[in-house]
């Protein structure tokens, strides 16, 4: 794996990211709506319980990362269709180099979103201890790593544009809804099937870890959260490298 190749691909992704301003701006809109309208609205209507907005903040943060990560990955279908990738695929760099370049590009993209949202949350929603920024960012890195990898796996294996809608309905929303971003997965009021699926959703552990460091409440031990994220990230990266190796040009 060549580092200069990884750097070249990463640099391209960052430049493209910065220049697609519409995409950058629009990707902030929905998390902010969720956070302030949905979170604020529910807290308001529940009345005394002002804690809901704080409770879902780590979840919304995760959602924002999830969306930008997976979409970044799936975006390579587009790249393949439009032949941007061809240039990279005929270059004398290995497919794992291409994978890691893309992975780092996507992680940077998602982390920029995440960090901005984290700051907004810190200013407007929950004043967690400053020292918590560091673990929060590390956990966000783990989440982006696994989710961008997942997106790249999907993007490398799918060949149609309709895939975008499928991914949204069958990957992103289920990952998000079952992750406990909006509810407490350890609550005894939860229907069993939701609980079971939630426990199988890797994102649950990301939300839980962020919740633990940001508002100090978690359903699972943080070590468990981190282990699940690391294992999931490794698995997705491994499959991603293999998928990139097999990837062929599509018309």
């Amino acid at each position, binding site marked *: 794996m060549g580092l200069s190749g990884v750097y070249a691909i990463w*640099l391209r992704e960052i430049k493209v990211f910065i220049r697609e301003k519409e995409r950058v701006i629009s990707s902030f809109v929905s998390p902010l709506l969720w956070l302030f309208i949905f979170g604020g609205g529910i807290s308001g209507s529940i009345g005394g319980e002002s804690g809901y907005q704080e409770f879902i903040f780590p979840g919304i943060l995760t959602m924002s990362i999830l969306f930008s990560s997976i979409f970044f990955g799936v975006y390579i279908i587009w790249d393949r269709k439009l032949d941007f990738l061809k240039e990279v695929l*005929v270059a004398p760099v290995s497919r794992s180099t291409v994978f890691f370049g893309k992975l780092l590009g996507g992680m940077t993209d998602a982390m920029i979103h995440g960090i901005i949202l984290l700051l907004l949350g810190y200013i407007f929603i929950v004043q967690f201890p400053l020292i918590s920024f560091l673990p929060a960012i590390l956990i966000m890195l783990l989440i982006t790593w696994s989710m961008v990898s997942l997106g790249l796996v999907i993007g490398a294996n799918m060949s149609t544009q309709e895939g975008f809608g499928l991914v949204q309905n069958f990957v992103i929303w289920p990952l998000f809804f079952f992750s406990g971003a909006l509810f407490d997965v350890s609550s005894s009021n939860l229907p069993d099937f939701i609980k079971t699926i939630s426990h199988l959703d890797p994102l649950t552990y990301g939300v839980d870890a962020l919740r633990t460091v940001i508002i100090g409440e978690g359903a699972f031990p943080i070590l468990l959260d981190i282990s699940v994220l690391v294992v999931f990230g490794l698995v997705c990266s491994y499959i991603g490298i293999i998928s990139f190796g097999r990837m062929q*040009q599509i018309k």
Partner: protein
Amino acid sequence: MIYRTISDYMFAIEIENLTKKFGDFTAVDSISLKIKRGEIFGLLGPNGAGKTTTISMLSTLIRPTSGIARVAGYDVLKDPLKVRQNIGIVFQEPSVDDLLTGRENLELHAMLYGMDRKEMNERIDEMLNLVELSDRADDLVRKYSGGMRRRLEIARGLLHTPKILFLDEPTLGLDPASRRTIWHYIETITKEKKITTILTTHYLEEADSLCDRIAIIDKGRIVVEGTSNELKSKIGEDIIRLTGSISISNLRRLKCVKKINSEPGKNHVDLVVEDAAKNLQKVLSIAGKVDSVEVRRVSLDDVFLHYTGRYIHEENGEDSIMNRIATYRSNR
């Protein structure tokens, strides 16, 4: 000798029974070719003949269904990375990055090919100059015209001075003046640096003057291969074009008429004849009502028509690349 090194392979490209199937459809059907080092080789064929698919297999972008292909001495299946180190390619379809500037596209390329900073900047300036994009180098490619994009892609394909260069319709969408400049440059640089070049083009007269050897490919098969002169002399020497109400059945009876080509909707016929000077009188005497006569030497167009049963229409090709660029823009 036990080890094969870069310098001792004989042929830049060796293909044996190379085949590519997409499902049941055979796009490339068991082709075999040997291309010598330093040669400019033209792959000509109508739309859908399998030219791009062949180039994609040779450049390791798609995997052959069966057969063997060696590029610069390396097997495309066993040593794809080695193959890629030795080639440069200009794709048929637009492949420069819209949201980067021209220079940034070239920088990305240079980094991917492991060029160092100094070499990179020198080469980039040199290439930008060559394709006359120096003053637009720092504009986003999004703002380029179709022809400017093409020139940028050609600069990119040559940037790292590859040993073997694939050009898939490199001058499609360019105006005649830029086409001449580009071909002139391609010819000079490839001869000077001994770059083996494989090109496809719809502009047959350009292929004729540029290529050392030519293969005509149709429906995935190579129908004929050789130097331009060999190909031409295979089908005859002269063409007589008759306009008017021509009696084709009468002409068929003449021995000296080797082939009669007529295009539907046109009132002229082309006759491939052995020796026009000697036989013209004979032809005219039985041809029916002739309004005008034109005699010329056989061209590559005639060879193409002879082997594929079709005329090659340049407009189509040009049209399609422009459409492609247009769709590609609106898709982003």
